[in-house]
């Protein structure tokens, strides 16, 4: 029993950079060796198929032959698609629009969603609020139908209608 500290995260035995998340016992002849590997190196060694949530480059496809990719540069901050892949960070709010088509799968992978349903900006346009309300109601409607609460579903449907006809 060790009372004070534990080894929680070990560094990968191969690259010595990433956290080791997988342990393997390799048997060579009579000698047993325990290997602690990161997912990347484990995949390279053929142990598993690599899947790392934060490996953003994987989710932003880059096909250099695709002419559109070469021309993708944010008009506001000048960030290129290549740079976005390398640094995995946006340069300005406009980047979101510039690279929109390419990054939607990324958000799906990271968050499992591509639609914000949280807080709205106080001064945001009424239109945004309306869209958001409708979206939230639709989500509640789905839930209500799934749980067979039909009375509640009817009320929500009326609400959606009310919002859709609002100008």
């Amino acid at each position: 029993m060790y009372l004070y500290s534990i080894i929680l995260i070990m560094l990968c035995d191969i690259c010595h950079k990433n956290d080791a998340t997988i342990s393997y016992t390799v048997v060579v002849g009579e000698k047993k060796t325990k290997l602690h590997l990161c997912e990347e190196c484990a995949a390279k060694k053929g142990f598993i198929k690599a899947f790392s949530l934060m490996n953003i480059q994987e989710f932003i496809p880059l096909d250099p032959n695709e002419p559109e990719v070469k021309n993708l540069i944010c008009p506001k901050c000048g960030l290129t698609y290549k740079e976005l892949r390398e640094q995995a960070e946006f340069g300005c709010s406009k980047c979101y629009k510039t690279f929109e088509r390419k990054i939607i799968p990324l958000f799906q992978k990271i968050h499992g969603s591509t639609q914000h349903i949280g807080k709205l900006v106080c001064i945001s346009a009424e239109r945004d609020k309306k869209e958001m309300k409708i979206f939230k109601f639709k989500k509640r409607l789905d839930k209500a139908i799934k749980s067979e609460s039909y009375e509640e579903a009817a009320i929500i449907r009326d609400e959606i209608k009310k919002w859709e006809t609002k100008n």
Partner: protein
Amino acid sequence: MGNKKLNTLLKNPPNWIDGKGRFAETILSSRVRFARNLKQFNFPNRTKEDELDEIMNFIISHINYKCITSLSEFSPLDKKFLVERRIISREFSKKTKGRGVGIWEGENIGLMLNENDHIRIHSICSGLNLELAYEKLNKLDDEFSESLPYAFSSKLGYLTACPTNTGTGLRASVLVHLPGLVHSEQIKKILEMLHKDGFLIKGFYSDGTMVEGNLFQISNQVTLGITEEEIIDKLHKMILQVIGYENNARELLLSNTRAQLEDKIWRAYSILKNARLLSNEEFINLSSAVRFGIELGILKKVSLQNLNKLLIFTQPAHLQESIGGMIDSTERNVKRALYVRKNL
């Protein structure tokens, strides 16, 4: 000589570690933060230093909170002190120009300007109290958003530099002491469970390989496609579950190895009470045993509040600021041992 603005911080421990609040023995603090950007400016990673100043001035002139200090006013030691205090991030402390720091409400509220995003605001409460921390943060954010043009889209929500923050821009985290799960070697199972459910967990004092002091930080990973309230609620429920597992582990340890456990706790207390040299690491680990002793009702003479205070004031930059300059590690270990003997 440290910045005068740090004098109050040097005299008093932060409010968020006052040992009050729900499960305060096990849960040191609940923290929430928002990442926000302004739509007309490039994000800090694509902004030149002089333009960073422009962004900072724009923000300061548009909000009602005037006590914002430029990071360049702080010495390297001051900045380490602010990192130890959880007011600024380690990354941020390496920067100099065009960055700002705000500290309000006895350190319950903090602000970083031009960190990874234009604005990072956080709110911390003692114990398990994510709701209150969020309520305060949300109020401040509402105030800011009335006068600042946030980068926001109805589809992706708050637009942030890193795609892992996009959406709500909300990261909620809880600092929790889990000696029972560590000693019973169940912690790995808990880590796996948390990962599977979309939470991040890391050692609070960790060099990347070892976790010291059995202190863990558990936070949400997903920020998009979920409401702020859901994030808070999910994390809250998950923490209650983790505490349940921790308590079970403790009961088992007590019934199987009570004598060994009591021995370790009393030995840890005696070392802290008598040592003449104490490294930071050793203190963190021994203080975990003492905390465990308080939690189990074994060490009745040590107050939680006192122990928490020690955890803050024995950190390297804190010790050095208190004597007004840099000292080497041996000297720090002497000072730390002395401070602990006097205050435990």
